[in-house]
């Protein structure tokens, strides 16, 4: 891993210099504050930097999209967040957004337009796929050769928005063996975090959802469980720990895998 310092540009700094960014990287709350998700954020930035894309973040001007409030049923808090974020985004004239969190991606893409915030929104898997297709991002194969990777579909990327192939395309560039769980794509099983579950104790039952899913993922004997969502990442990491398999089965975001392969 290189430790070359990267100065991450903010929209405010660019605006002050009379410049704009081609794409806004929407970091999200998990990506900003959660120690595990911050690593994914850094991997995404390294890739954006590496391919020379003119990107920027909102920095301290970013705020929660309001997704967990909306899914919990609090439309007031959601719209408070949404309308304030839209003011900021529109002020900077943002046209295109990449999000590394499917929940942010879904909310920005689907729920903001009606409130006055219309942007081209992509998930980082889609951006990576596009960069690869355009030849701007090449993946140095080799380091993952012979490894088995299984991919867990995040609900808000898969079923909610029909994005199943982009993440698989990206992972397939790693030269590893991609194995599918029985419940995948449209039939993918949730990690247990969606709909504001991330922020509460599970209701009474006989098993945790993340344990059920981690068990299924480990049934494919993977070296790596690939994810595309910070919440799935937490849930499946905990699920793997439940079976005390964290030494042999690693949970990584696909951005981290690409960054690792390219030794960024």
């Amino acid at each position: 891993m290189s430790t070359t310092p990267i100065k991450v540009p903010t929209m405010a700094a660019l605006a002050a210099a009379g410049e704009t960014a081609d794409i806004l990287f929407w970091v999200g709350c998990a990506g900003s504050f959660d120690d595990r998700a911050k690593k994914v954020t850094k991997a995404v930035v390294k890739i954006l930097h590496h391919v020379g894309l003119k990107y920027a973040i909102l920095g301290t001007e970013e705020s929660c999209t309001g997704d967990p409030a909306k899914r919990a049923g609090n439309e007031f808090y959601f719209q408070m967040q949404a309308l304030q974020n839209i003011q900021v985004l529109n002020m900077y004239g943002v046209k295109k957004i990449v999000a590394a969190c499917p929940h942010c991606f879904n909310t920005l893409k689907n729920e903001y337009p009606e409130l006055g915030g219309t942007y081209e929104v992509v998930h980082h898997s889609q951006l990576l796929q596009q960069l690869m297709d355009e030849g701007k991002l090449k993946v140095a194969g080799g380091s993952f050769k012979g490894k088995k990777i299984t991919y867990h579909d995040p609900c808000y990327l898969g079923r909610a928005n029909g994005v199943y192939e982009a993440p698989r395309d990206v992972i397939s560039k790693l030269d590893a063996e991609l194995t599918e769980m029985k419940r995948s794509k449209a039939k993918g099983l949730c990690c247990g975090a969606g709909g504001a579950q991330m922020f509460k104790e599970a209701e009474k039952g006989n098993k945790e959802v993340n344990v059920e899913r981690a068990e299924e993922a480990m049934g494919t004997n993977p070296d790596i469980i690939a994810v595309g969502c910070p919440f799935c990442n937490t849930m499946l990491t905990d699920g793997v720990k439940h079976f005390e398999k964290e030494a042999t089965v690693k949970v990584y975001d696909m951005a981290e895998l690409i960054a690792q392969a390219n030794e960024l």
Partner: protein
Amino acid sequence: MIGAIIFVVVFISSFAFFTFKILKIRRNILLGQNVNLSGNKGERLKTMLMVAFGQSKMTARPVPFILHFFIYAAFIITQIELIEIVIDGATDHHRSIWHIVEGSFLGSIYTFTINFIEILSVLAFVATILFLSRRNIIRLARFQKPEMKGWPSRDANLILFGEITLVTCIMLMNSSDVALQTMGVFQRTDTLLVSSQLAKLWEGVSMDNLMLMERIGWWGHMLGILGFMVYLPFSKHFHIFLAFPNTYFSNLKPKGQLTNLSAVTAEVKLMLDPNADPYAVPAPDPNAAPVKFGAKDVHDLTWKNLMDAYSCTECGRCTSECPANITGKKLSPRKIMMDTRDRLEVVGKNIDKHGKDHKDGKSLLGDYITEEELWACTSCNACVQACPVNINPLEVIIELRRDLIMEQSKAPSSINTMLNNIQNNGAPWQFSPMDRANWAQEMNT
């Protein structure tokens, strides 16, 4: 002649009763909030043809798909033979269409159709037996969930036994008909593949008994069909009609997109407007209905949610794919839809008895669906994806959560903490918004 009169009376009164019940259900559905789903006719039609007529979402489970398809196809195609049965009944004739088409090109179409029906009926018969054993002998898990106890299971079995009776009667009718043809009593048809085989069983049966058997078959089938029709509006089996409009009015937006409440938008915009006078009293609108957020009872849901409830055939694909249900939580998306229908039926009966403003002091949220069920949902859309007739239990769950949170301020304390954090810190956790880009500073060193 007496037979024909009885038949016509029974036939017309069955239809009248059926229409009466349909209008009741229509009225109940229209108790829901208005939602405009009239656009995108082409795409809607396509969805209906694919999902309802073409059964496309059933294919996710191939074995039940094939078995269900036999019954579905047999049901649709049998309606053709029913035309002749009805004409025969009303005019006191026997195989009146055959009399007209015999010997012509249409005659071969007639024979082909009847044979097609006979073969599909046998396949449907087999499928029905397998469906019955799946419920009662194999006891498939999704048919044994708590919400299936009692009436729902009886309803399912009744329908399956009804189907067996219908197929048995039509085969009895056709096979004794063929036996009578051999005796020279009835005019000969071309070879009927299945009933000519069955007719061999009736060797040695007297002509009078065969005539009686043929009549039992005819009346049994006819009364069975009419009884079926009268029963349908009381049964989960109503999906055979509502699957079509329900898929036509499917949600065409991405599954992840929830509705934005416009009443909230106006309010929030006012709050965020620096020029708004916080003490200004808005001019009262005498016609404005009090704004309510979310749904506490069925009339707060949209008419599409209510149509969903009547379209549900309780197959339980939603529940068997629900992560909460799989891991033993109380939530079952099927129960959400069954509760909605049960509650709507009660509300409808109250209106019939006590007038439209009657309140029975009960509501869907609380008396039917508990908070524990609602808070178990991960909004993963697995139930929405699984439904073969595009029912959306998630929409109902979110509307009920909105009532809990926005009308009753009732939420698990951890949810309240998360909400407060969003309001105060712009993140669901307690971090300072000023620390949001600390990771970027870490990258610059």
